[in-house]
């Protein structure tokens, strides 16, 4: 048994944990599948608009994709209890068919939406309504 073969054997076993540490640091734990409840994200843009939905964030892309998305509308002229109303994206005249791509340089912040937040509750209720209407 030579010294070189011993070094090679040790190096071979080190490759996997080192790679795991390096790669693991780049992965968002919240993006792991089967790791808790549904994840809805809020994307705040530089112009003040906010969108909510499922986020696909590819690190090497210059944009992020939001699907099943919702956004706020000014509701101060209505008699709702809050000055904003939640709208589902897709009812516009051009009826966007799939996800919405947002350029990274227009994004101010991305945050997880709390599962018990008013936005999450409104989205969950909308899904229940959609399912009820589909029945």
């Amino acid at each position: 048994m030579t010294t070189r073969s011993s070094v090679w054997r040790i190096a071979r076993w080190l490759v996997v944990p080192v790679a795991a540490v390096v790669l693991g640091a780049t992965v968002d734990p919240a993006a792991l599948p089967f790791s808790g409840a549904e994840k809805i994200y809020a994307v705040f843009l530089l112009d003040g608009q906010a969108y909510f939905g499922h986020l696909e964030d590819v690190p090497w892309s210059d944009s992020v994709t939001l699907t099943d998305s919702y956004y706020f509308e000014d509701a101060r002229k209505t008699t709702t209890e809050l000055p904003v109303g939640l709208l589902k994206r897709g009812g516009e005249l051009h009826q966007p068919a799939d996800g919405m791509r947002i350029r990274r340089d227009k994004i101010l912040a991305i945050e997880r939406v709390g599962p018990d937040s008013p936005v999450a509750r409104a989205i969950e209720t909308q899904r229940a309504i959609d399912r009820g209407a589909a029945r």
Partner: protein
Amino acid sequence: MFVLPVGLVVRTVVVVLAAFALIGVIATGTIARLAGGAVVADPATVAAQRSVAERDLERGYEQATGQVRKARGLNLAISAQQADTIANKALADLFTLRHSALITISQSIGGSADAAESYAKSTEQALDAKAAQPQPSADPVLLAPRFYAIVSRFNQLATQLTDQAVADLTQAASPAPTPSARPTPTPSPTR
């Protein structure tokens, strides 16, 4: 002499590349979205949102009818009979509008036509009974988009009806007022 174990190196490279690809796909969140499913509200949450929507509708209805009654109470240039005709028609239209909105709410959560009609009638009675009583302030609730659309559309149409009624009531006296000749928006709070 050291001999490079080519087979082992190739296997290692393949494993590392596969790990990279897997981690890359996971990091995008695509698998999490596909595996996670979507949370759907339970019936209690839907019922709570529905009652908030009813409250918002009632608030709009009271505002609109209050404006019409206030305008009717002014010293108007038109005759009392003309003013009553205009005010009563506006109040009836607002009542129909609220009725349609309540039916739309019921149908949007899967109620049949008959169930929606009976729901609308019973809710109207409950709302009218509560109207005179002071209501405890509840925590503000963000409505689901469908309920918000109904309330928002109701508000738009109620505002149109009210503005038109106030304009008709406060017009200068004329020999033949024709309040029914004006275009009336369809009292259907659906988009």
